[in-house]
């Protein structure tokens, strides 16, 4: 079994997929980090010019932001739904100021978390698809499946070795995202900021922000939490892609199907959130990290536990289907 997994990992490396993923990450992380640095510098210069003479400190900047947000709430052109979310933002910022938590200054720790937050619904799944989409279908299109299935190894073992290799590689991608976004952003921001405290666990009850359940942890701990959720989402995406790869005969079709579900799913969630069934679609449940901010509920009735359960069910069902189809089918390529 170990040697079978080794074979699969060798194939992934020989196809130079990890290099492709690393290059994609470096380019994107570099752009993001540069953009954030640029925006931060601009915010400071704007603040300094508006409060002439006063030197920059983050508390007064946050206070200024709170004032601006309050001004927007008073404006008659802002719709009711937006006012609620602005109110939450204001309350959160006020909480930060009163508890001496800096939400502004960019640091490596903050960026690393933010990058995962931003990429979890599309970019992270995309990287996993690069790994998983051709795992089985390419064996069919290259006909090498005949090599794997004419040896003295039962079919379920062949498939299990592929899945375990995929899980390992997925884990490696998550580590790679952490390392690359940490390393690149350190170059831009110059501060690690891992021991900075952060407040998480806000609850949104009856239209107001409830900070009773807020816990204060360091950014490092928060980062591990976020990356663990990222890993979980990746495994779910990997399992679903794995099934599609087992069901279709061509890699292009596999990529097409999974990309269409991902993008189509985002639209569904956006336009048809009233339709109850949408929340059981895996794409609607990818944004696990956003639940941590407390105010997030993409569709009525969804929560972190709900989404984790939905993704787990999708993963398990995908695996069952993959194993069933793979061990029963006639290979005619």
């Amino acid at each position, binding site marked *: 079994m170990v*040697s*079978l997994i*080794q*074979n699969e990992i*060798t*194939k992934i490396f*020989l*196809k130079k997929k990890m290099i492709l993923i690393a290059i994609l990450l470096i380019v994107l992380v570099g752009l993001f980090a540069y953009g954030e640095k640029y925006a931060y510098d601009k915010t400071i210069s704007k603040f300094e010019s508006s409060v002439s003479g006063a030197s920059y400190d983050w508390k007064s900047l946050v206070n200024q932001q709170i004032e601006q947000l309050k001004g927007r709430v008073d404006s008659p052109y802002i719709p009711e739904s937006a006012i609620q979310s602005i109110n939450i933002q204001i309350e959160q910022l006020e909480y930060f100021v009163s508890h001496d938590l800096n939400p502004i200054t960019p640091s490596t720790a903050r960026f690393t978390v933010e990058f995962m937050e931003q990429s979890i619904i599309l970019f992270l799944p995309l990287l996993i698809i690069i790994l998983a989409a051709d795992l089985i279908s390419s064996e069919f299109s*290259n*006909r*090498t*499946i*005949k*090599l*794997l*299935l*004419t*040896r*003295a*190894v*039962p079919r379920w073992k062949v498939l299990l070795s592929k899945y375990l290799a995929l899980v390992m590689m997925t884990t490696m991608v998550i580590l790679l995202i952490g390392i690359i976004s940490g390393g690149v952003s350190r170059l831009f921001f110059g501060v690690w900021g891992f021991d900075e405290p952060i407040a998480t666990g806000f609850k949104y009850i009856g239209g107001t922000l409830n900070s009773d359940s807020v816990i204060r942890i360091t950014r490092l701990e928060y980062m591990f939490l976020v990356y663990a959720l990222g890993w979980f989402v990746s495994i779910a995406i990997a399992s679903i892609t794995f099934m599609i790869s087992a069901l279709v005969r061509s890699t292009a079709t596999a990529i097409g199907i999974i990309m269409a579900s991902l993008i189509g799913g985002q639209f569904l969630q956006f336009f048809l959130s009233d339709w109850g069934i949408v929340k059981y679609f895996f794409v609607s449940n990818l944004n696990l990290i956003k639940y941590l901010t407390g105010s997030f509920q993409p569709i009525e009735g969804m929560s972190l536990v709900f989404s984790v359960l939905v993704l787990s069910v999708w993963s398990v069902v995908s695996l069952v289907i993959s194993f069933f189809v793979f061990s029963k089918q*006639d*290979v*005619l390529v």
Partner: protein
Amino acid sequence: MSRVLKVNNVTKYIEKKEIIKGISFNIEEGEILGFLGPNGAGKSTTLRMIVGLSKPSSGTIEICGASISTQYIKAMENVGCLIEGPDLYNFATGMKNLEMLSAMSKNISKEDILEVVRLVGLENRINDKVSTYSMGMRQRLGLAQALIHKPKLLILDEPTNGFDPQGIFEFREIIKDLVRHKNISVLISSHLISEIQLMCDKVSIINDGLIIKNAKVSDLLSSGTIYWVLDDPLKGQTLLKEKYKADLKIENNELMGNIDLEKIEEMNKYLIDEGIKLKYVGIKSLTLEELFLNLTEHHHIT
């Protein structure tokens, strides 16, 4: 001699169409069986069932006494195959391809791999990427893959596709050598009848999902047609018909027909005595090709 492969009354339905209609054949140790049939006759489907790529709808297949449905692992340990061209990972070297494959079987040492590489004559290029290989080299690597775990039964589907004449010759010698020295049994399907004729002991002719003839190659070829070259073939035909009730026909001024070989001398003497000038008499042995066409010409894809 022990039985290496036993195929018993196997049928296969694909999408409700009966592709294989109950075929049975055996291969004994050290035998080479040729599997001959037109396209779509069910050769590949049968071979795929033997190597475990698809499952028979009914009937049993045993390899070295182990049924492929109940003792899959034991059965597959004894089979090496090359089904419809070599299947290789183009992004890896030839060596890496073999190493990955050897990891799927037990107890294959580095020496075993090198030995099989020497056997197929790839030692100079084995560390190059497979994407740089010619068709013939890919086929050799495919053969190495089939042999790497020292199987007792080798299954080759159209193995000489893509070889030049030199390659075909070498390939044939490798196979014959394996049978002679390692006591491997071989099942070869081919549309090249000459290949089967040159390599096989037995032949199974398959058409439309049925085996229409199981026979030894030598037996099939020994039944021949006698032909005479005479100055007056018409008279000869009449004479032989009256005296021996021989059913002869005239083609290209030659008198020919299927005659009991023991009567030839007597017939020749009779013709000469009757005043016919006999120029030449001979046996046209049937090629496998003619036999094959005779047997299959009335079958069409339905």
